[in-house]
């Protein structure tokens, strides 16, 4: 059924392909990037926008270059980057551990699924940043409070997605397992858990980005020696080019996390791999 739909869709696309579908992907992507950078350079040089708000791409590139040199030479910024990477990694792992476990606990009882889950979903919508001062008060200005906020923010989508995945049981598979007289644990371990892996990975992808966000927010608010703190210092000094450069580095960090989870997803949930689409590229 699905493959049939896919072919129908692709034939429709072939029928009226636009310019963007006919030129190679790398060309359109890099062309777009160059255009944006050029526009940015013109805008920044025009004098319409203060350099404190919009530095030129070349000055941001310079700041990025000196950041890279500092990292390679083992300067203070390498230390800062390393701290933030470790914080984000720990926050992510903690969120996965707790989110998936609590997802299981929530999904396993009707009370928790029906009564507790809506509250957790509502809590998921709340701006969890407001708890940042609480973590500083509890864990101090060190790495602990950063990991805690990162994990706290990343935790909710994992919990909700895991619980949702376990609750969305395939009726046919449930009937098969019932007819084979499978025990509760067997059904959970051999059917529900693997079935919910696509959901868990969706949660992990959201969490991977949120872990970095949470850690950086806590560094902004609670000091320490990570790259978020360096960005805040640069901002206080109105060194906007460095703010942009570090922001770029943190964005890359978030993307690397996301890409790593996506890679693992394609390996582990191989049966869900989209067939013959370029979307995964």
């Amino acid at each position, binding site marked *: 059924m699905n493959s049939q739909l896919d072919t129908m869709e692709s034939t429709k696309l072939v029928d009226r392909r636009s310019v963007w579908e006919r030129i190679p992907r790398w060309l359109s992507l890099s062309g777009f990037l160059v255009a944006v950078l050029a526009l940015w350079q013109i805008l920044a040089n025009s004098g319409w926008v203060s350099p404190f708000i919009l530095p030129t791409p070349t000055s941001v590139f310079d700041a990025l270059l000196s950041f890279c040199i500092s990292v390679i030479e083992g300067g203070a910024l390498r230390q800062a980057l390393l701290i933030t990477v470790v914080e984000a990694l720990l926050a992510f792992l903690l969120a996965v551990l707790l989110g998936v476990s609590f997802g299981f606990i929530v999904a396993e009882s009707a009370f928790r699924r029906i009564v507790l889950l809506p509250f957790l979903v509502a809590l998921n919508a709340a701006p969890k940043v407001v708890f940042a001062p609480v973590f500083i008060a509890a864990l101090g200005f060190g790495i602990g409070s950063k990991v805690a906020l990162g994990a706290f923010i990343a935790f909710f989508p994992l919990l909700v997605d895991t619980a949702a995945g376990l609750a969305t049981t395939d009726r*046919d*598979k449930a*009937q*098969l*397992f*019932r*007819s*084979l*007289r*499978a025990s509760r644990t*067997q059904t959970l371990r*051999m*059917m529900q858990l*693997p079935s919910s*892996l696509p959901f868990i990975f969706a949660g992990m992808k959201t969490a991977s980005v949120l872990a970095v966000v949470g850690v950086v927010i806590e560094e902004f608010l609670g000091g320490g020696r990570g790259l978020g703190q360096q960005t805040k210092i640069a901002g206080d000094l109105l060194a906007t080019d460095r703010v942009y450069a570090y922001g770029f580095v943190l964005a890359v960090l978030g993307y690397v996390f996301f890409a790593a989870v996506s890679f693992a997803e394609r390996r582990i949930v*191989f*049966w*869900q791999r989209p067939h013959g689409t370029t979307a995964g590229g």
Partner: protein
Amino acid sequence: MDSPAVNVEDVTKIFTTKSGDVTALQDISVTLVAGEFISLIGPSGCGKSTLLNIIGGLTSATSGRVLVHGSSVTAPPEEAGMMFQKPVLLEWRTILNNVLLPIELKSGKRESARHVNQAMELLSAVGLADFAGKYPHELSGGMQQRAAICRMLISDPQLLLLDEPFGALDELTREQLNLQLDRIVEGVHKTAILVTHSISEGTFLSDRVLVMSARPGRVIGVVNVDLPRPRTLDMMQTGEFLDLTNRVRALLESGHDLGEERIPA
């Protein structure tokens, strides 16, 4: 051999819905001797799948009871193997490991490893030996359903409960699988109940075809199929086979007309 393999005694099933009670099955009584193959055929909504699920212990009857080999069915009986309309394979398991699933669930991984040869024999019998290491998404629908046959047979069930297993397949694949199923069942003398929409499929495989009508689901007629076994596709061209299918069709139409009259114009 004297005691019946399956005894359905006055089974009635009433579903409670928002718009009132619906009698899905009314006073159904059927007895199967060991090794007998019967088909349940009837229009959609005649409760034939419900009856199969009650025999398989997946649904409870509102009244009446079902005995499998003399003991009352309250949960899926151990001697039954089921097949559904969809193959329902686990996407993350290889075909071989899907076939071994019932053994692994019942006796654990070590025991299932001892059944690998047996699983491979079954897969060879349905022409899937080369696909043992593949995953379900790499197989066609017909091949997946053949793997499901092997999964049903691996635990050597004495009673096969087949819920329109080939309903979603094309005609040629269906005939081939019917032929394979006939050989398998014939060879090991298994009792089987097949739910089907197809008159020729039901007639081809069965010793008896039970024709049902809808609302309430009732058995309105039985056609005995005295064709010799093993059955061959050539038999489907004989006048005798045509006679039998015509009788099933006539019964079905009589039941269908009754149903039509009850629907207000």
